[in-house]
């Protein structure tokens, strides 16, 4: 019994068939509970008013935006090293979700920033690096879409994911440096969860768990779709040969 058993598509399909409804159910429950808790049963923070509640979407989405790329990095490595097709398809399935999460983080951040900072957009290092991360997601998805041979596409995007991870990280710290060089001390800190009261922290934790489960459910659904599409392609090719 080893984890590599699940690299077998048949085994993967059989297992996820059983796991998927549970994941979806848990994701819905934690998301509904977390969001309702956060939005209706938590007092508005002083100085922030009701707008602080955007963190229940913004923080989990931002967290997922980064972690999904890490997940793609791991699955790409598994594909490049051990050639398990399910792994490559999982990376492909995760990329659009990651791009959407990045977009959600950017948009909710803008919605929060307008009343709080008085601007929709500020060239803050965090905001800038998320925009760059979004561009990396777009490039990754575009490369998957434009290479016809699936194995070639998986290899190329895998390499892109590895190099992109290094450069996304590098851009993050370069942007840090760049903005300090422009206007010292003018940046706003978003590190609120480090000194956040428990009243806000627990529903936020619930929302984070909900987003993770939601992501897992989506990736499973999308990976299963990819596997089915791959099988369909194989069947069609066989019929064309016959």
């Amino acid at each position, binding site marked *: 019994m080893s984890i590599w058993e699940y690299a077998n598509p048949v085994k993967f399909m059989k297992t996820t068939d059983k796991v998927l409804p549970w994941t979806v159910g848990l994701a819905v429950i934690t998301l509904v509970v977390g969001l309702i808790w956060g939005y209706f049963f938590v007092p508005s923070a002083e100085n922030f008013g009701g707008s602080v509640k955007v963190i229940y979407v913004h923080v989990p989405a931002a967290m997922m935006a980064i972690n999904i790329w890490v997940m793609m990095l791991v699955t790409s490595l598994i594909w490049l090293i051990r050639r398990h097709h399910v792994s490559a398809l999982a990376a492909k399935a995760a990329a659009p979700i990651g791009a959407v999460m990045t977009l959600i983080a950017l948009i909710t951040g803008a919605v929060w920033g307008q009343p709080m900072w008085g601007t929709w957009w500020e060239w803050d290092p965090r905001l800038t690096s998320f925009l*760059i991360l979004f*561009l990396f997601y777009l490039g990754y998805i575009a490369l998957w879409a*434009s290479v016809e041979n699936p194995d*070639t596409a998986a290899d*190329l995007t895998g390499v892109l994911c590895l190099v992109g991870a290094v450069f*996304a990280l590098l851009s993050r710290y*370069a942007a840090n*440096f760049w903005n300090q*060089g422009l206007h010292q001390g003018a940046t706003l800190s978003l590190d609120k969860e480090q000194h956040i009261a428990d009243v806000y922290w627990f529903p936020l934790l619930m929302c984070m768990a909900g987003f993770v489960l939601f992501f897992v459910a989506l990736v499973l659904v999308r990976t299963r779709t990819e596997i089915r599409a791959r099988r369909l392609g194989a069947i069609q090719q066989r019929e064309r040969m016959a």
Partner: protein
Amino acid sequence: MIALLLRDLRLAVRAGGGFGLGLAFFLIVVTLVPFGVGPQGEILARIAPGILWLGALLACLLSLDRIFALDFEDGSLDLLVTAPIPLEGVVSIKALAHWITTGLPLVVAAPVFGILLHLAPEAQIWMIVALLLGTPALSVLGTFGAALTVGLKRGGLLLSLLVLPFYVPTLIFGAELVRRGAEGMNTQVPLLMLAGITAATIALVPFASAAAIRVNLR
């Protein structure tokens, strides 16, 4: 390897090779900017480092798809892959040839364009240093993008989308170096960071490019 370098240079310089195209593009960008932002000297001087860097970046991008595409079409890339020299070396030589034909002319021409944009005299030397240190990284990263898209029919736009995010760190530190130089501030940090990024890029990225080419020619 030297023969390969000479061959690439000769192909670039001769008719249809696109040598000088990047330089002309650079000139057009520099000419158009004052029309866009107005002819006031102090505004131009403020944005000159950024404009020069953006011009260098776009001029570099313009010639990227030629790096491997022509060799791929006439089959000489297959010969290069099966040649006794390592593919990583071939990629590095290709990047070097690309830099000599596009990056180096920009470095040489930068002072002239700097004068056109009212770049501060004390920033001129930093502009040359920054471009000299930064443009090799642009060429090497460009070969990676070109290697990823070499098999595609219309890879040009995709190539830009793939490569431009990789240019962010180089652009940030390169422009910062010139800006600090113009204001007489300490330039050591961006200088060392820029040099470090370029050195690491030259050392490591050819392996990724070579891997991508092997996949594409499989």
